[in-house]
């Protein structure tokens, strides 16, 4: 790979992974805030509204980070991937422009009303703004996943004489068979991040409280901690289950069907096998094309992929080497980390959910600790999921149509690109520290009514 191409790819991978830390939290929290406010409206209990306002403040902070790290993504299609934009802009320009028109305007117009309009608007209208912001963020996700789905599995296009892709059917583009499951899988992942964050802060508030278990007053941080757990643990359990089945399962079968070399690489299956076992752990050895120290469940891959115990699964070596994803080990690890974490999420939330149902969660400090320590892992799982999708798409930017090696900006040199890579790494480090600092302040203050950081003059 030439150096400029490497830096173009590195810049996109770095800024995209960093960016997506924030939208996954806003998309997840957006739904939870709507749920909290709906419960407030139904029960008339002000505590739900205060909980929603508290998470709304975290949402606002995260949203800003998502906006400022998102603008570079849209620019990079042109700045770093000029050939890709020139060849496919006629198709992906549709979804990118639609995202602006149908999602960003909705989100950005109602965000300030949602964050600051509680007193002015009254309860019901304020609930409306929360729904508008949540819908905006999920519609935005839809158009971005639609753009990605086209790159993974191009449909609804034709190629003109100069080799440029032209839209032939907008309907086909927006109902890409790849799109539906990928979208719900991604959204479920976002709800996992959001609900794990809410549950973890809830667990933290309960754990730090010094009064005897269950005795903390309702209007205290521990009181709100119990409320967070009551809402977020069921949400986290449902989202974790949906993330695995049906969405994750269906998504994997799409990969097996439409991108067979990537599927083989994800599973670490170098040689075609009948039946094929499911690898849990092992290290890909690219010199000898085998897996070192494998731990396998026999027949399981055949069954999961084709729902037959003895089905044949194609290995990586049955495809031309040119069509292999160019970083097989990283793809393999990303996929396995995602699946492993996803499984752990279900176990942890099922345990916490069971204890919550038996009204024993609040006294059970080990499980509360577990819920607290889980908080960072959904971010990792979501990042690994996107790495699986994007590394699995290689060596193509548009699967089977346009190779990554020719998609970049030919006139932008390695030196100039490296300059911006270094710049973004520095800037994003500072932004991340600022975000953590401000989020920590909000969390320390908690949702108690007296506090509002914006009312200080």
């Amino acid at each position: 790979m030439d150096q400029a191409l490497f830096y173009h790819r590195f810049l996109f991978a770095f800024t995209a992974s960093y960016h997506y830390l924030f939208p996954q939290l806003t998309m997840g929290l957006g739904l939870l805030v709507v749920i909290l406010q709906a419960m407030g409206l139904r029960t008339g209990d002000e505590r739900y509204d205060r909980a929603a306002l508290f998470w709304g403040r975290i949402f606002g902070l995260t949203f800003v980070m998502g906006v400022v790290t998102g603008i570079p993504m849209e620019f990079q299609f042109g700045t770093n991937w000029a050939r890709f934009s020139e060849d496919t802009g006629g198709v992906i320009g549709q979804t990118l422009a639609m995202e602006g028109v149908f999602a960003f305007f909705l989100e950005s117009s109602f965000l300030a009303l949602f964050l600051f309009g509680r007193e002015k608007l009254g309860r019901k209208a304020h609930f409306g703004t929360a729904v508008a912001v949540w819908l905006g963020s999920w519609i935005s996700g839809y158009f971005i996943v639609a753009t990605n789905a086209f790159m993974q599995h191009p449909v609804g296009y034709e190629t003109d004489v100069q080799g440029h892709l032209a839209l032939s059917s907008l309907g086909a583009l927006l109902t890409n068979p790849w799109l539906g499951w990928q979208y719900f899988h991604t959204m479920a992942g976002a709800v996992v991040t959001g609900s794990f964050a809410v549950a973890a802060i809830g667990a933290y508030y309960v754990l730090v409280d010094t009064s005897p278990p269950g005795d903390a007053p309702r209007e205290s941080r521990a009181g709100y901690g119990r409320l967070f757990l009551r809402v977020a643990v069921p949400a986290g359990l449902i989202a974790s289950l949906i993330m695995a089945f049906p969405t994750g399962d269906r998504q994997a079968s799409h990969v097996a069907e439409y991108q067979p070399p990537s599927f083989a690489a994800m599973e670490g299956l170098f040689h075609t096998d009948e039946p094929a076992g499911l690898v849990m752990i092992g290290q890909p050895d690219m010199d000898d094309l085998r897996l070192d120290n494998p731990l396998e469940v026999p027949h399981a891959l055949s069954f999961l992929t084709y729902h037959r115990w003895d089905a044949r699964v194609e290995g990586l070596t049955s495809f031309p080497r040119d069509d292999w994803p160019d970083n097989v080990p990283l793809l393999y690890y990303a996929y396995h980390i995602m699946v492993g974490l996803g499984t752990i999420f279900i176990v942890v939330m099922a345990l916490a959910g069971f204890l919550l149902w038996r009204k024993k969660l609040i006294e059970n400090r080990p499980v509360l600790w577990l819920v607290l320590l889980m908080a960072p892992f959904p971010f990792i799982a979501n990042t690994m999921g996107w790495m699986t999708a994007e590394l699995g798409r290689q060596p193509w930017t548009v699967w089977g149509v346009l190779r990554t090696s020719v998609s970049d900006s030919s006139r932008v040199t390695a030196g100039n690109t490296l300059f911006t890579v270094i710049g973004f790494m520095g800037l994003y480090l500072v932004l991340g520290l600022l975000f953590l600092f401000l989020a920590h302040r909000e969390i320390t203050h908690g949702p108690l009514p007296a506090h509002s950081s914006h009312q200080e003059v």
Partner: protein
Amino acid sequence: MATVWFWLVAALLTMYVVLDGFDLGAGAIYPVVTRTDGERRSVLKSIGPVWDANEVWLLTAGGSLVLAFPKLYASSFSGFYLPLMAVLWLLILRAIGLEFRNHLQDRVWRPFWDAVFFGASLLLAVFLGAALGNVVRGVPLDANGYFFSPLWTNFTTQGARMGILDWFTVTVGVTSLLALAHHGALWVALKTHDPVRARATKAAAWIWPLLVLAVVVVTVFTFRIQPHVPERLREHPLGYVFPVIAVAGLLASFWLRRRAKELGAFLGSVAFLVGMLLSVSFGLYPLVLPATNDPAASLTVSNAMGPAHGMAVAFWWWIPGMILVTAYTVFIYRGMRGKVSIEGEGY
């Protein structure tokens, strides 16, 4: 269809400049018109609820450019690599300054973010103008319609090694700063109480003559640098309507400000910006990125356009989409009409 999309993208960019222009301009005059923390908050509060939506116009213009003129998007974004990266940094820093400032109340945190917000707003106004100057002047395009420009070289407007910044584009950048600072000052005057209002009015009064001078200079320069513009006006005299709108807006903003008609003065400035940008669009058409080395190599509406079916389809969702967007915009600006008060929630 390509012509329709040329004007749609021009309209989106004009909307961006008119709307984000006032919050950029407010940032550029921020330290001049405010003294106390409360005054600063009143300026921030006048733009806080809308700056993000205003920036979405830029993103939407970008998205529309991809779908209608993919070649232009690819060529210009990769060619203007370094200045666009600088614009990204400035957009990020400005937004962070604006949003993070009020989280802490202390004498280190707030002045720091105030300075970041001011500096980034000012530089953005200059960079956006310089970008426009580059598109008017043109760039040395290769046989594939691509180029790469360093940030600056020798500040001349010709030759193979010309940079993004030269005497012409810097002049356009300064004009843009003056125009947006004037626009922002009239906005702040409209939205705030004395003493901020009085200072903003005074700032607008100071900037106005400089702006008139800059507009005259930039017009003369443009006619020299890009002969296509005067030629096109000669061939289609109807196009003079746009500069007439600009001049009328500029004069209106002067008279109405003197009579303390704040809304009228601001709308005059809106007309001025709309007139200027549409003059440039009209003057360049059908060019979208002129080539300085060989006029025949220029990117035009027809050789940079995307697939026709896509543009036609997009037109049909664009119309209802824009009706929705207009509805939100009207709703938000109606909700915040009148002067801001620094009591209560927000910024």
